[in-house]
């Protein structure tokens, strides 16, 4: 046993004497690919991904003039910067746009690059009659064929216009007081003003019977729903016919905004 221990001791001594100490200088240095790596969680100076640029005071996506951006001026589109963009909204909410298209619920364009599309933005209808119609009624009677229906999906302001051509009958030198009257009836309600027409005080005295034309209009707000408007006329004196020339008479409406 003693012999074995001595041998082991000698071997250890010999081994330790023979071991060459490495004095080579050592200094740990990372590889370049590691050393030049952005650290986890480190915020880059400005964020760039392709054409996307995000800075502390500016955001831009795109190249050249094909840019969407925002900065202290506001937001913009279609220009390298806010000032030269065709579309922008400043911080006060002022919008500048080179063009726009607005559509209604039916996908119909109501505003486009040319402005309001009137056929879509201002629904209207108009009707005229034919031949003549005579009445000796002193109460209003409907003018045949001059009735319109308006259907509104929401409350709207309507301009209604009527042009009437008519005359009151009787001999020219008959000085009896008489007149022709016409009105617009909306949903049963007679709307002022009354249109007077058809009699004239002649140059030599007395009345003359000639066709005369007058126009009336009014604007009112109508509730959503269907409304009927019609033209009516009457004579002021049952002894004298009132004649309306329907060919030259017209009833129209236009909705002021859809």
């Amino acid at each position, binding site marked *: 046993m003693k012999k074995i221990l001595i041998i082991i001791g000698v071997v250890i001594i010999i081994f330790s004497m023979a071991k060459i100490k490495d004095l080579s200088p*050592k200094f740990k240095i990372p590889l370049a690919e590691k050393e030049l790596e952005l650290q986890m969680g480190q*915020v880059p100076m400005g964020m760039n991904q392709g054409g996307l640029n995000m800075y502390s005071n500016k955001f831009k996506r795109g190249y050249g003039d094909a840019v969407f951006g925002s900065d202290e001026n506001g937001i913009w589109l279609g220009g390298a910067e806010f000032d030269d963009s065709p579309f922008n909204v400043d911080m006060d909410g002022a919008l500048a746009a080179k063009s726009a298209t607005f559509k209604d619920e039916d996908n119909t364009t109501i505003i486009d690059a040319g402005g309001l599309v009137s056929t879509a933005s201002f629904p209207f209808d108009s009707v005229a009659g034919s031949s003549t119609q005579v009445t000796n009624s002193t109460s209003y009677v409907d003018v045949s064929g001059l009735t319109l229906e308006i259907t509104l999906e929401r409350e709207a302001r309507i301009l209604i216009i009527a042009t009437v051509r008519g005359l009151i009958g009787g001999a020219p030198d008959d000085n009896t007081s008489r007149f022709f009257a016409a009105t617009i009836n909306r949903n049963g309600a007679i709307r002022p003003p009354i249109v007077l027409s058809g009699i004239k005080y002649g140059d030599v005295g007395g009345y003359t019977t000639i066709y005369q034309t007058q126009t009336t209009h009014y604007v009112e707000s109508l509730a959503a729903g269907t409304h009927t408007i019609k033209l009516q006329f009457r004579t002021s004196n049952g002894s004298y016919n009132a004649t309306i020339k329907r060919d030259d008479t017209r009833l129209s409406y236009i909705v002021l905004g859809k």
Partner: protein
Amino acid sequence: MADIDFQIEFEGFNEGQSPLSHLDDKTFIGNKGQASDMKADIISNPGFLTQSPALVDLTNGNQDGVVDQLIRHILDRPTGTDTTFAIGTTKLFKLSSTTVNSGGSPSWPQAITNAVSGESVIRLKANLYGFFNRASDGEILKMPLANEVIDPIWGSDTDAALENAPHPVAIKEDVMVFGNGRYVGVYVEGSASLDVQKLDFGEGSEIADVVFNSNTWLIAVNYGEGKKGQVYLYDGSAISNILSDEAGVGDQEIGFLYVLNGIVYIAYHDNSSNGFTIGWLSGRQIKPLRYFSGSLPDHRQKALYKNTILFVSSTNIMSAGASVEQLKFQISTLADGGHATIGGIASPFGTPLIASTDGGSNHRLAKFSGYSVDSNWKSVFVDVTQGRLLGKIHTIIVNTKALVGSARCDLKIEGNQGVVESSEFEISTADKTRHVFRSIDLKAVEDMRLVLSYTNGDTTNTCPIRKVTALGNYVER
């Protein structure tokens, strides 16, 4: 006593200079492949130490030819096949990879009216633009590449004269952004609009450099005589008058910015210390990478060489970077720069071009060619004591590539911080790859370093060293 108590290996020379070599050229801090002092090529064949490249003047490239002044900036890209331009103190030069043009029509080099200091040249589409200072202000020249006729007052005719200041310049597509003292100027060729004061960084500021990277202009600005440096991001369209972002270097002066593989490197200087720094823009932080001594290079003194940044420091040409990413980032003194004052450097044709002057009548525009004998490498010092024992180096083994012709390098060992040294041993002999030197005549020392010198080397065949092993014993003195 054992035959060998210790061994010291020196290898992996691609690691460049020690982290502290800029402060102490006898430092102990470093790795087995790092130098405490050096001027050698470790980037051409990483892992091997080879001689520095020599400089050879281009044809007509000195005062006996047409280079009769310091060339201050060289355009770092060709404008045509084997053609580029450079600007001197008063002249515009045209050159190829081998020759500085002389004569012709118009006659080269061309004098620039009233120029006293050329600052930079750049090609934008079909024209060359040159930035230079006059006696009291600055100017931009324009020269169509088609007819090479210089308009020496294009800048002031189009907008206004420049400040008398450095004028770094960079381009992207049809936009040119340049430094103009406290201002940044912008020229957009598409709209023919020049604004020499597009951005104003204020009194006491000076634009040090401008580069374009990742759809953004980066503008380096020094304040207060180089007491503070700042890097700003400016939107790529160069239309806005507002900066996008910024990162501060701190109370330090910026020399240049350089973009390589999408990374923005920055050379800067702490006025309170002896060293200079190469760092990179890491987030909003400027992260220092390596340090060097000498001088702070400016926007005219940077180039690409073998995937590393080549730059000027004092009278030397240095390299920073890794030849391949899987190696370590190194900084090393690669070569001598020629005359005492180095002007512009660039590598428009691959091989670096270096302009220099002695401040008198000698000037040159040279390129790397062959090997220089002004080349050496010194390891960091290694402590070789153990307790009260000193180290005695008795054997040196050098592994090289198979040497060719008269290739040679001399080796010696310095001890005790250079107070004592061994004789020189010649590493030479054609086809030999293992060189063993016994009986090193250096007494037992406390510390040692390896010194390799190419003073007696060959200018055609170099002696590439892969590994040096020193073997020694501990002895009592």
